[in-house]
């Protein structure tokens, strides 16, 4: 899933300062699962914002709606009375926020979260990055452990000199991906793979303005 963290109330307060009628929209998929932008979090954030504005003596009207997915236009169509508001705060990932912005081009659409990464939920409240969407997956060469996302330097040919007792040089709380990869390949009896030089990556495939077109035949 896509993992996002909530923006600080103070930042959302600043962004919405000039509006008196705001629609806050949650997303029922990824940001619900990572406890950042589901129905419950929309309610918490809206309540906190109302209170903060009340303290300043400037009441604000906040509508709360949550749809199944903000990255899917057909669900965005389910939003109601959008034009009664002056701005929308979206608690979806970056794609979801832009989905809303695309559908309502005349409205300011503001991010209520910081989208962080593609990853999974290790344990309650703890998420880790697993994939950088590099566009050219090499997990078959690395024992199913992604060095692009999980090695601090995205190295392709083994651990750097900074690895320390299986931990990464950037922090002893982080596993060194290349130690994990070595152990995994060893377990699989495939150290031969570890010894093969992996060529420099084609970062053109990870570049900006990417798209995928299934309509193109034969490619």
């Amino acid at each position, binding site marked *: 899933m896509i993992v996002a963290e909530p923006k600080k109330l103070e930042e959302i307060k600043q962004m919405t300062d000039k509006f008196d009628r705001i629609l806050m929209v949650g997303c029922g998929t990824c940001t619900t699962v990572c406890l950042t932008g589901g129905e419950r979090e929309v309610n918490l954030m809206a309540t906190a914002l109302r209170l903060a504005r009340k303290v300043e003596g400037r009441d604000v009207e906040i509508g709360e709606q949550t749809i199944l997915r903000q990255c899917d236009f057909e669900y965005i169509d389910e939003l109601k009375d959008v034009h009664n508001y002056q701005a929308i705060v979206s608690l979806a990932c970056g794609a979801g926020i832009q989905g809303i912005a695309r559908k309502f081009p005349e409205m300011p659409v503001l991010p209520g979260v910081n989208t962080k990464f593609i990853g999974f939920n290790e344990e309650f409240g703890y998420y880790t990055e697993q994939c950088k969407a590099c566009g050219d997956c090499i997990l078959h060469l690395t024992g199913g452990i992604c060095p692009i996302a999980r090695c601090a*330097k*995205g*190295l392709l040919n083994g651990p*750097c*000199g900074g690895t320390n007792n299986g931990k990464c040089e950037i922090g002893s709380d982080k596993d060194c991906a290349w130690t994990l990869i070595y152990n995994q390949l060893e377990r699989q009896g495939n150290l031969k793979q570890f010894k093969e030089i992996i060529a420099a990556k084609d970062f053109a495939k990870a570049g900006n303005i990417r798209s995928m077109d299934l309509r193109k035949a034969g490619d």
Partner: protein
Amino acid sequence: MGFKEALAKGEFVITAEVGPPKGTDISEMVHHVEALKGKVTALNVTDNQSAVMRISTLAVSKILLDLGVEPIYQMTCRDRNRLGLQSDLLGAAVLGIKNVLALTGDHTTLGDHKSAKPVFDLESVQLLQVIQGLNEGHDMAGNELKGKTDFFAGAIVTPEANPFEPQFAKFEKKIEAGAKFFQTQAVYDIKKFHAFMDRASKYNVPILAGILLLKSAGMARFLNKFVAGISVPDELIQELANSEKPLAKGIEIAGRQIRELRNVCAGVHIMAIGAEDKVPDILAAAGI
């Protein structure tokens, strides 16, 4: 005699290093270089060492050439992409720089510009392959060069890395990618170093053992705590702690280590970290 030639002849080769300063005042650095001239075969020039921004390695390597000292141009992959790395390598070649040490580089978050975007477009193994390609007359994309390079490329290895096996496998990859010499991270555990040399010697590539000057017991403890792949044994820390002149003691220890390594490897690489003018004293203590 040049660095490459001295290694080829089987001489016990001494290298040391200079850290380019932060700022344009190079007087102290020049003083250090002059103190080392004639005492060492070549001097490494570090590349934004520890991810701390300083004068460019290329500029300082050229200054060394002008001062009559052979540079080993360290190149990390942290701050430049493949275009930047290759164009700097071509620049180094036309300036007369012969030796390049290919490194991945410490992560940006360890340095003094923590918000920088780390590059790591390539890494040490791939950079060695790129240098090999330039020596053959083509760039990384396969384009032919008008005039090729003639670099003597090397790399580093950490004989006391933990875990060691992945490190050794990477050492083998570096040889396959074209590393013609190695300098090691600081060596303190002579036993481990022997074990490493036993396995490494079949590749017949010269290895210069790293000697890091310990200036105090506090420094030794700091290294143990914060620097990966370095473990200063307790006896040495005690020796430093018991001494009234820890720096002189550190020099004595370094000299002793060099004597112990003399018949084990191709040479030593002395890292004095800011006390480069003490390198001649270390060599004297080593009886060289």
